């Protein structure tokens, strides 16, 4: 692969997958507010 193609591949992976990593990190730092969830009727599994 040419250096410019490799560079663009790395930039694409870093921005998009990096964005996904950040989004996941943000979500992980704010867990679901279980206590505030509405009561669900018991359901059979």
């Amino acid at each position, binding site marked *: 692969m040419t250096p410019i193609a490799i560079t663009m591949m790395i930039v694409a992976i870093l921005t998009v997958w990096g964005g996904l990593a950040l989004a996941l990190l943000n*979500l992980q730092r*704010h867990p679901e507010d279980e206590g505030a969830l509405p009561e669900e009727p018991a359901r059979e599994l």
Partner: protein
Amino acid sequence: MSSIPSHNTSAPVRRETFSSRRLFILSAIGSAVGLGNIWRFPYIAYDNGGGAFLIPYLVALLTAGIPLLFLDYAVGHKFRASPPLAYRRLHRAAEPLGWWQVLVCFVIAAYYAVIIAWSLMYTIFSFTEAWGDDAEGYFFGNFLQVAEAPGIGFTYVPSVFFPLLLIWVAVIIIMVAGIRKGISRANSILLPLLVVMFLLLVLQSLFLPGAAEGLNAFFTPDWAALADPGVWAAAYGHIFFSLSVGYGIMVTYSSYLKRRTDLTGSGMVVAFSNSAFEILAGIGVFAALGFMAQAAGAGVNDVVTQGIGLAFVAFPTIVSQAPFGAFMGVLFFGSLVFAGVTSLISVLEVIVAAVQDKLGWGRIKASVTVSGLVAVVSLALFPTATGLYLLDTSDAFVNSFGITLGALVTVVVIAWFLRKLPLLSAHLNRISTIKMRRSWMVLVAGVVPLALIYMVSSEFISKISTTYEGYPAWFVGLFGWGMAAALVVLALALTFIPWSHRSKAHNDPEYDSVVEEEAKETAQ
């Protein structure tokens, strides 16, 4: 049959919910990741500047795709209903927008299932290499038995009809099982499977001779492309279709989210997962095309293609030539099947939810009736010798004048006529970790409509100036323009049909209590 006995009680059934945020995110990713990610994105990126396309792509994602995704989330989650009832709760006059989206989903579901059925057959063909050394002739001639001229015929092609029937049976079972036992479960199995299979496919492609040449073609930037407005339009267009925004899916899915959920935080994961998968698909597809070019002694630009040509002509050729080709074929076509099914169920859920809301029907009755009806239409019209022409025409017109025009009208009505963006922004910000304030409103009211206007008008001009694909005028008139116009007329007609007395539009204590609680929270 008037109703399902277990649902025939005076107290309305509680609305179904995703049991966790994780399952909602999985299902939303399953919906967004579809055939387009695999067979459309790689070509669009290559054709619009290669590596340089990343810039308009990311700009479109951040300024239009994600804002529109959050608009859908806000409407669905605040008003807790299918699109027609959710828009009706937003404003009485907005109800037809919801029906329009429901009808668009009806058309899409009918033909989308057909492509999944082809992919299913090609998964099997990967072992036998049924196409021999002429993948193109085999696909159009032997497999689809495409007729000479477009029209409506009832010459059925059994090798498409039966796999299509199988797909519909499987999908109806998922729909009947409901949000938790059907849709959540299907996505939590199929999506991880899809990712693993696709990763294996990419790995295998990368080790093929010529892969590097393919990646060069895909990633080498053509910076001059950034000055071309057409490239920017392609980026916005791709993002709209890729994220499944603007035609009711995300409104419907988010209406099943529990009340206190981080909408924007979840949405960011969905949006970036969709893009992450696309980048992966670009790498896999172009590595494979690089191999194909080398084997043919041609340049990558000679073999590059998209859509049906990529999946059912180029890939079979690659499968025949590559070492362990059968394995590669199973991974590729299996991925198409799984990516397709998880998207198809989300499209169907829009219609099922709307019928449940309008008629006050239970899950089983609504899902059997709706999926059954779409299945009958799908099985009657598409697995025929003329089915490909119909599929091509309905796809082109429902995309341009169903999804795109519908999204434009919806955004303009909500943002400019009803002026509901402050209300929806407040809803997004109640719980969410990433706040959507003034800049979000500016994007939704400004950038999004401008991009959509450009797309709709350029589609209109290209489709009015020449008859689509050179098909007969009556055919395009009826199944293209006529179908697109009929959706609008039918949407208005459905709005005038009164809501059943059992409908949640009249009696929904669950929603009323939510409204009450939110009013209390706001007052505090």
